[in-house]
């Protein structure tokens, strides 16, 4: 399914592996080893556009997947649900709405301070 690099969490050696998520199982197959995990035990890290996808495994190991298409397929296979704040950050419209809200809050705050200063005068 995807080429990935794998770290076993015990030492920093880099393993080039084939990562597969099929039928509720995650299979990591390297040159001289194979590991199988339950899909539900794998945890996908918050996605960033240019960074490799990171899959945390229950025994402290991790996989890094560089290909964006493989990342999307992995997210689907693992049933990854993007957190609300991350969804907000991913869209330009939502980010611009945040900017508008921020400007409104700052404007409201400034007006409130001016009101308070007027009362104190």
């Amino acid at each position, binding site marked *: 399914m*995807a*080429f990935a*690099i794998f*770290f*076993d*969490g*015990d*030492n*920093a*050696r*880099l393993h*080039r592996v084939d990562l597969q998520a099929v039928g509720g199982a995650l299979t990591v197959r390297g040159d001289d080893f194979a590991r199988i995990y339950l899909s539900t035990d794998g945890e996908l*890290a*918050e996605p*960033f*556009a*240019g*960074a*490799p996808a*990171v899959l945390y495994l229950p025994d*402290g*190991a*991790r996989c*890094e997947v*560089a*290909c964006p*298409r*493989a990342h999307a397929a992995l997210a689907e296979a693992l049933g990854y649900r993007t957190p609300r*704040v991350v969804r*907000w*950050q*991913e*869209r*330009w419209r*939502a*980010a611009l709405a*945040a*900017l508008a*809200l*921020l400007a409104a*809050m*700052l404007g409201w705050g400034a007006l409130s301070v001016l009101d308070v200063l007027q009362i104190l005068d």
Partner: protein
Amino acid sequence: MSLPPKNVTVPAKRAAAPARGAVMDILAPRFTGSGQEYFRIWIVNLLLTLATLGVYSAWGKVRRLRYFERNTMLAGATFDFGGGPGAILRGRALALLLLVAYDVAFVLSFRLALAVAAALMLVVPWLMRSALRYRARHTTYRGLPFGFRGSVAGAYRAYLPPVAAVLLPVTLCAAVPDNPLAVLSLLPLLGWPAMHGAMLRYQHGHLSYGGHAARFEAPARRFFRPYLGALLVIAAGVALCLAAEAGLALLYAEKGWGSFEAAPPAVRWAWLALPVYLVLLLGGPFLQVRLANLVCSSITFPGMRLHCAMQARAYTRLLHATAVLTVLTLGLYRPFAAVRVYRYRLACMALHVHDDFEAISAGARRMRLHPPGLELSW
């Protein structure tokens, strides 16, 4: 779909080879993030921080650290940050409490102010060590966390002198401003470069990774030179200002415009702002570059040496450009600036490896880290 490159080696165009040992490989870190993506994270963080009266800032900091670490690649693998916001929240609450106590103590009594200042001096080194441990143990590379092995006694040796050198004159000048002793208490600040060097030695010399301990090779005396250089840059800037002021005064007299002191307030204020600008945007970057080069190039791990070759002129130009754009966009360019500066700093760094990097990595093993204890950061 393709395999990650087997050997992410970058030719040593930017960074000269270190003096000691034969360099087998030079690895350059790479940043994969973008200003646009970070802007969206930053604006949402800012909004949520404001809406929660600052509480969300701890979560925001975690997201920022995670974004920069996850987008930093070295030898085909990324760094990662796995810390939670709890420690940051606790650290910020404690720092706020201490600062409020320090402020209030002055209003109540001098003795109380001294007691709070003493308490601050005792607490700050411990807080710093706690923050360094938090940052190191939650930063991972190739699945292994970094470690920080600095002792409590070492933290006091590194941080107590600078904290005392700052707090003592501030406390005395506020409490007994007419006493000449208050001014004399500023004298220890002359040793600031050595104190700064000791802090940096403590911060970087006690790092570890996979059982490999870092070494920090710059002695404290080497930190005087960057400060002297920055002072010279600032002095030259101020001298230039004074010379220009004298020239303007002459021009005013010659043209019959009256005295320069009587110039419109806007002109006078602009004139006063110029030295501040020179200090912040000439002396500041110069010092940052010299210190970054010195500090980074002094860190070694077994078989590896970090190397940093930032250029003062290029960095100053970058900071000028980003400062102007940040002002023109009312602060909205700030995240783009952060990315540009981070990318520049990374581009000037390299890891000089004296052996096969993969063989060294295979020797890095997960060590039993210190127990978490009370984690604090800010």
